[in-house]
């Protein structure tokens, strides 16, 4: 068996990966689900709640993995979602 990679890279703490924060304007959402479908990091999911249009807006499933590609912002036909760089108060 040839060697396989298994170690945690020595520089893993040092490598900076952009971290994003996703904001949903719930009542603008008409429930097309594009953002959920296309988010490459699968950050979003459908929520249980109803908005004023009577649809389930998306909600953040796991924000820590958002890498700020902002594709959700680009695909949303209703400008109901956007992402910003994470506020790094706690250090990131």
């Amino acid at each position: 068996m040839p060697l396989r990679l298994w170690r945690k890279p020595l520089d893993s703490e040092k490598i900076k990966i952009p971290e994003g924060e996703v904001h949903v304007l719930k009542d603008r959402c008409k429930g097309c689900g594009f953002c959920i479908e296309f988010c490459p990091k699968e950050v979003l999911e459908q929520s249980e709640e109803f908005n004023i249009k009577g649809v389930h807006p998306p909600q953040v499933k796991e924000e820590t993995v958002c890498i700020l590609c902002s594709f959700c912002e680009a695909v949303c036909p209703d400008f109901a979602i956007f992402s910003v760089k994470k506020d790094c108060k706690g250090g990131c």
Partner: protein
Amino acid sequence: MTETPTQYPDSEPSDGIRIGVYVCHCGLNIAGSVDCEEVAKFAAALPHVVIAKDNRYTCSDQGQELIKQDIKEHKLNRLVVASCSPRLHEPTFRRTCEEAGLNKYLFEMANIREHCSWVHLHEKGKATEKAKDLVRMAVAKATLLEPQEENVVPILRKTLVIGGGVAGIQAALDLADTGYKVYLVEKEPSIGGRMAQIDKTFPTMDCSICILAPKMSDTGRHPNIELLTNSEVEDVKGYIGNFKVQVLKKPRFVADECTACGDCSKECPVTTPNEFDIGLATRRAIYTPFAQAVPSTYIIDRDLCLNKENVITCDKCLKACEREAIDFEMKPETVELEVGTIVVATGADVYDPASLVEYGYKKFPNVITSLEFERLINAGGPSGGHLLRPSDMKIPKSVAFIQCVGSRSEKDGHLYCSNVCCMNTIKDSLLIKEHWPETRIYVFYVDIRAYGKGFEDLFKRAKKDGVLFIRGLPAEIIEDRKTNNLWLIGENTLQKELYKINPEMVILSIGIEPRQDSDVIQRLLTLSRTSDGFFMEAHPKLRPVDTPTGGVFLAGCAESPKDIKDSVTQASAASARAGILMAQGKVTVEAITPRLLAEKCQVCGLCARVCPYNAIAVDKETKRVDLIEAACAGCGTCGAECPFEALTMRHFTDEQILAQIEAATEQDADKKIVAFCCNWCSYAGADFAGVSRMQYPTNVRIIRTMCSGRVAPKFIEHTFARGVGAILVSGCHLGDCHYLNANYQTQKRIEKLWKKMERLGLDKNRLQLAWFTAAEGEKFASKIKEMQSIVDSVTLDEIEKSKVIVKRTAR
């Protein structure tokens, strides 16, 4: 020269066949135990023999002159020389024939030295009788010989080099500098191979990448080299001089405009452990494997990249790249190449020590491999050249090296020595001493093999610098949970005492093993592999970089574990061998390939199924069978398989072999063993028995075929029908066949015959199958001795019974 009075047969042979027989004394080598004069007299009386002589040294200039004169004077049109092995002097006497205007395929040899005088030193009477039989067999075959024309195949002056490690790089550069076009196919994104990962190189302690990088860029820039990286060979058709190769070029998604500025990579939000650093550093989805990579063009790992198929969700790199070099639309491409020669330089893998549980690799963080060490000690590596313990990122004050991990072991890993690990460890220990002289270093070894130029000096230096060499590998490594230090427990076999040592880090000196995907290249190029799994050379001594497939050569670790110097030497050798072919521009193929008798062929396709070289194309629709002569190696397996006798194996025809069988069994058949031996292993093994003067019974008569696959069941049946005592069919060991796998057909056929014999109530013991290497003379001799007892115990009844039954049931 002692010359017997030449005897002529009473009348002129009616069919115009005029054979000259020359019996060689070879000084006393033959004449010492064979009465050569008597053999010559005997020969003179054989049908078609016009002249028979015995002389002291037939291969000498005078000996050859005499033959040439006789050919002219007596209008000889066949020549038989009874002397040594055809493996030695067949080329000599073939040349003699040609010089006398006789087609060289009208020559036949009787091996009365290696197969007779040398193995029956003390039985002159019997040896002489055997020599007569051997001459009778040769004359019988010679009578049926026919002149042959050798085919000339043109050689394209282009080469494919597979694998861009140091061996492939060297081969490509040498051939390109000679003036040939070279395609260098590398499956990784960059050339460089293992050597690019190594820090310093033993024995000179040169910086590895510093001496490799200039070669890499020369390769990338050379006008005669076309580099195909991130590419794999998918298909190879054709034959020596004329290979048609399909290469799959996988897309990089970054075009040549890339200047390797790295702006894209900084923006890429996804990461993974870097293969080049064995996972000790991180890379992005858009990356270059290492700073000196050739080509330097970045590449996108689409499995990691956020953009799947046609949806571009992330455009960070696209935006960052000022040169607009990134192109997500790139598609895989199949490139068709036509080349005359191929160099295989696919290198080797390293052994994964995780399977040796007792050493705790992957369990204890501070147990690392020698390859990880190379990256850690490298100034450009993930730790900036600091030997850091993975557990706490501290520099260890004591380290232990364990040798032969995955090598030289009956239990785990491989049986062979990986060749570089001893010197690599000595190099590594000196590197540690250079940076941190206070470090305590232990090396646990089985034997230290410092055999090469400058190696012993390096070993001495390490000992002088205080590296402790302890003989005896630790039985087990135990981790101290608190400190993550390691306990090594074992026996010092020199001092016969137990040791228990507690270093802060352990480096496993891992072995080199065949690439896991070797079978792909093996299949595409019809190569063989040794039992170790490395590609097999055509001859270990005399053709060490050739393969059994014409036009294909080997270089570097693909052939066996070796260091950089040997890899480079071998690469230059391989390119010289390929260069010779291409400079000649053409090659002649021995005229031993089959001819199709179209009127007998039923287009059953059985021949194509057994041909190891795909040299037979069968089209059932158009009812066409085509023999691709240049791809054929002449093993004759097809000829043995054809149920309709539609294939004639030139120079080894059915009629010729049957005539040899009849001649061998003309007298006292029931006391004899007829042995079919393949040219490469078992005939050579019998030769070796002769060279080593191993004595065995005189009653064996050897018939040479190129491959045991040529031995058709009907030959065996015919031999039994002639009332022989026993038959031996022999070839190269399974897996070592000179014709790839043709001897598996032999095995199948013999097993079938055994079943048939059982069914017919015959003693199947009388048919033996055995495999020999060219070095197993001893084994050959013992096999004949063993078979002697079979012959002794066979009753005349049994022989008569088999004669009758076989005649009745033979196809």
